[in-house]
C-alpha cells in the first residue's frame, strides 16, 4: 500500500475546497453549464440519463480496507447502496446529487481517495496490473512508477486541457493484465543489460470508434527519464493533436496520421531539448516513493496445508480453488479473485454490504488490502493458503465466489442505456442473459478461457474490440442491434477482433453467442486450444457460416 503523507493529503483537501466553490458558483448561476462541465468532469462528475454519475479513482487498483469501507459509506449515504467497478480501476456511483458531491469528496479525502481527473481531457487514472507486487515473475512492483506518474500527472499546469482524454497503463509482467496495448501510452517495465529498470514505451493504442493497437515508440527509456519522455509525448500531442473533431482528437489519430516514425522523431527532438531537466528522477526520489509502499509481513507457510487438502474433497470448493485462486510470489500464499459476475447480475456491481464485508475479509485474511482489476472483479492479493477454505465459505455466502473468473460468464460490460446518455443500446441485460445461458459451471469450464466484452455504443467503454467475443450495440431505425466481432484480445498479443457479419437484433444476441461457442467446441483442435486460438487458426468464416446459415 502507498501511504499518502501530509503533502498528498493537503493537495486532495485543497482540491475538494476548490470543487466546493465551483459547485457553489454553478448552483448560484455564476458558472454556465458549459463552463462548469470541464471543471466537474475533471472531478469525476458526469451528467447521465437520470442523474449525475460520480467516478472515483482507485490508483493502480489498490485499496485498503478503510478506503473500501468509505466507498461503501458513499454508496449508502449519497447513492442507492451500490457501486459499479469499471474497466479502468475506478468505481462509479450512479445516482448522486450535485449538491452532495463536495461532501462525498470530503468523506473520501479523509482516507486519501479522490476523483481527480477521472474524466476530462487530461491524464486519467494511471492503471496497472491488479496483481502488482504479488504476481510471480514480475520484474518489479509497477505501482512505484504508477504512483510517480500519478503525482506527475495530477493537476499538470500544461496538460490539463489536452485535445482529448489521455490514458496510461503499466505492466511489469510477461502476461499483460493491464491492457497496455490499448492505451494512449503503454509502459512495459523491463531491465537493460546493466540490470537497470526502464520502460518499453508504446503510444497510440486505443479503442473507441477507431481502434488501434499501440506501437512501440522507444524500446528502452531509463527509469530516471520516464517523466521527461512522457512529457515530450504529451507536449507534442498538446500542440499537434487535432482539435477540430473530437472523434479524431485522441493521440492514436495523430500517431496514425503522422506515422509512428515521424511522430517518434518529433518526440525525440522535444525530449533531447528537455531531458536533463528537473523531471529527471534521482534514485533517491524513486526510493523515497518506494519506501512509502508497505508490504505485508509474510510468514513461512506451507504450500500444501492440511486445511486445503481436507477442503479439496468438496467439489464446490475444489472448483473455486481451480478457477479463482492464483499462485503468489510467496510460498504458502495465494491471490484470490472475487468474481463480481454472479449469474443474472450486472457485471462489476457491488453493494455497500458486500464492500464492507470484503473490507472485513481483507483485514482478516489479506493484510487489509484489496485490488481492483480492469476485468471488473476484485482480488484479495495475499491470502494464506490454509485460510482459503474459511475465506471461500464466507465469500460464497456473500455471492462473491462464483467460479467463473476468465470464463464465458466473466463478462466485461459498460453501463449502457440503463444509465448512460451516450449509449445506443443496453449492455447489462445482454450480459445478464448470457450469464443465465452459460450458468452451468461444467459447460463453462469445458469451454475454457473466453472473454466476452459488451459496449452499448461505439465509444467502446466495454472494450468490445478486444473481447474474444465482442458485442457492440448500434441503433438501426430506432431499434437495438448488435454487431459481433471475434478473435480480439487485450493482453500482450493484443489484436482487434473481426466482424463476423450483419448486426443482429437484441432478442437474438444470446442465441448467436451460443452458436459461436458451439461452433468453437466442434472446431477446436484439442480441449486446451482456447477460443481465440481456434479463431486465429481458422479465421472467422466457419463461425460466420454457423451463425448466418439459418438466419
Amino acid at each position, binding site marked *: 500500500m502507498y501511504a499518502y503523507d501530509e*503533502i498528498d493529503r493537503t493537495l486532495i483537501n*485543497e482540491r475538494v475546497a476548490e470543487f466546493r466553490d*465551483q459547485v457553489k458558483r454553478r448552483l448560484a448561476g455564476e458558472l454556465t453549464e458549459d*463552463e462548469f462541465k470541464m471543471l466537474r468532469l475533471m472531478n469525476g462528475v458526469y451528467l447521465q440519463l437520470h442523474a449525475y454519475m460520480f467516478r472515483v479513482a482507485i490508483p493502480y487498483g489498490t485499496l485498503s480496507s478503510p478506503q473500501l469501507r468509505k466507498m461503501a459509506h458513499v454508496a449508502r449515504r449519497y447513492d442507492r447502496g451500490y457501486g459499479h467497478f469499471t474497466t479502468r480501476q475506478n468505481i462509479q456511483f450512479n445516482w448522486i446529487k450535485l449538491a452532495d458531491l463536495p461532501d462525498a469528496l470530503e468523506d473520501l479525502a479523509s482516507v486519501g481517495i479522490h476523483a481527480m481527473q477521472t474524466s476530462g481531457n487530461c491524464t486519467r487514472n494511471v492503471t496497472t496490473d491488479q496483481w502488482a507486487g504479488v504476481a510471480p515473475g514480475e520484474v518489479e512492483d509497477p505501482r512505484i512508477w504508477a504512483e510517480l506518474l500519478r503525482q506527475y500527472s495530477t*493537476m499538470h*499546469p500544461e496538460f*490539463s486541457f489536452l485535445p482529448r482524454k489521455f490514458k496510461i497503463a503499466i505492466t511489469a509482467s510477461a502476461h499483460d493484465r493491464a491492457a497496455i496495448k490499448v492505451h494512449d501510452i503503454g509502459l512495459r517495465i523491463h531491465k537493460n543489460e546493466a540490470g537497470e529498470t526502464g520502460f518499453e514505451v508504446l503510444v497510440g493504442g486505443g479503442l473507441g470508434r477507431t481502434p488501434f493497437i499501440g506501437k512501440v515508440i522507444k524500446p528502452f527509456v531509463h527509469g530516471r527519464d520516464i517523466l521527461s519522455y512522457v512529457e515530450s509525448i504529451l507536449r507534442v500531442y*498538446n500542440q499537434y493533436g487535432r482539435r477540430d473533431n473530437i472523434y479524431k482528437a485522441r493521440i492514436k489519430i495523430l500517431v496514425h496520421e503522422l506515422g509512428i516514425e515521424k511522430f517518434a522523431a518529433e518526440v525525440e527532438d522535444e525530449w533531447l531539448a528537455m531531458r536533463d*531537466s528537473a523531471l529527471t528522477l534521482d534514485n533517491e*526520489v524513486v526510493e523515497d516513493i518506494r519506501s512509502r509502499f508497505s508490504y505485508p509481513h509474510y510468514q513461512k507457510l506451507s504450500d500444501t496445508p492440511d486445511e486445503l487438502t481436507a477442503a479439496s474433497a468438496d467439489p464446490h470448493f475444489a472448483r473455486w480453488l481451480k478457477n479463482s485462486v492464483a499462485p503468489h510470489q510467496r510460498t504458502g500464499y495465494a491471490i484470490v479473485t472475487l468474481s463480481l459476475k454472479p449469474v443474472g447480475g450486472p457485471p462489476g456491481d457491488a453493494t455497500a454490504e458486500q464492500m464492507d464485508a470484503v473490507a472485513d475479509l481483507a483485514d482478516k485474511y489479506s493484510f487489509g488490502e484489496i485490488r481492483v482489476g480492469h476485468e471488473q472483479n476484485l482480488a484479495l492479493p495475499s491470502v494464506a493458503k490454509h485460510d482459503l477454505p474459511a475465506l471461500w465459505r464466507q465469500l460464497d455466502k456473500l455471492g462473491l465466489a462464483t467460479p467463473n473468473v476468465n470464463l464465458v460468464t466473466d463478462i466485461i460490460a459498460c453501463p449502457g442505456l440503463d444509465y448512460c446518455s451516450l449509449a445506443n443500446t443496453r449492455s447489462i441485460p445482454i450480459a445478464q442473459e448470457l450469464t443465465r445461458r452459460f450458468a452451468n459451471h461444467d459447460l463453462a469450464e469445458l469451454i475454457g478461457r473466453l472473454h466476452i466484452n459488451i459496449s452499448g455504443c461505439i465509444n467502446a467503454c466495454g472494450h468490445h474490440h478486444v473481447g474474444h467475443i465482442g458485442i457492440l450495440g448500434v441503433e438501426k431505425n430506432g431499434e437495438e442491434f448488435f454487431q459481433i466481432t471475434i478473435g480480439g484480445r487485450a493482453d500482450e498479443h493484443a489484436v482487434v477482433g473481426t466482424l463476423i457479419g450483419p448486426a443482429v437484433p437484441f432478442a437474438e444476441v444470446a442465441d448467436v453467442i451460443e452458436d459461436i461457442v458451439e461452433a468453437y467446441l466442434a472446431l477446436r483442435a484439442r480441449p486446451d486450444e482456447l477460443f481465440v486460438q481456434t479463431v486465429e487458426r481458422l479465421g472467422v468464416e466457419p463461425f460466420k457460416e454457423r451463425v448466418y446459415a439459418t438466419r
Partner: protein
Amino acid sequence: MPLVKQGKIVADGYIHVADDAEIPVDGAALIPAARFLADPEVLLKRSNPTGVIWPNNRDPEELVPYLDKLAVVALAFPSFRDGRAYSQARLLRERYRYKGELRATGQVLRDQFVIMLRAGFDSFEVKKDADAEAFAATVKRYTVFYQPTGDGRITALHQRMQLRHSESAR
C-alpha cells in the same frame, strides 16, 4: 474585460490592434502575429512598448529573435478547453527565456489562474469581473505542486527530500 497584473486589477495601457486596423504611431500596442512578423524590425523601433498577439497554432520559436525587445506576448485561449497556449507559455519562459509580460487572453476564468501562473503567465485578461476580483484569493488555493515548471515552486517530490534530509540532520 479587466486586466490582472502582478495580482491586481490594473488599466490596460495597450491598444489591441485588429487584423485590418492601422498600427498607431504612438502608444503601447499589441500587434497581430502575421503583421508583426511582416515587419518586426521597424515595429520594434516604435517609441512606445510593443507586444504581439500570438495564435495558439503557431510555433513560438518564430519569436525567438525578437523576445528581448517585445514588451508583451499575448497568448490565446479561444475556448476554455483549448490548452495549446499552456505549452507555448512554458516554451517561451523555460526554453526561450522570455522575460517580458506573458498575457493570457480569451476564455480566462478563475479556475485556470493557478495553472496559468505555473505555466509562466503573469498577466490575465479575465472574462468576468468577479473572477478578476477573486484573483488574490484564488491563487492561494493550492500550496502543493507535483510538477517542476519554470515558476520555481518546489515540487512535492523535492519537498519530501528536504524534509527527509532535515530529519536525518537532526
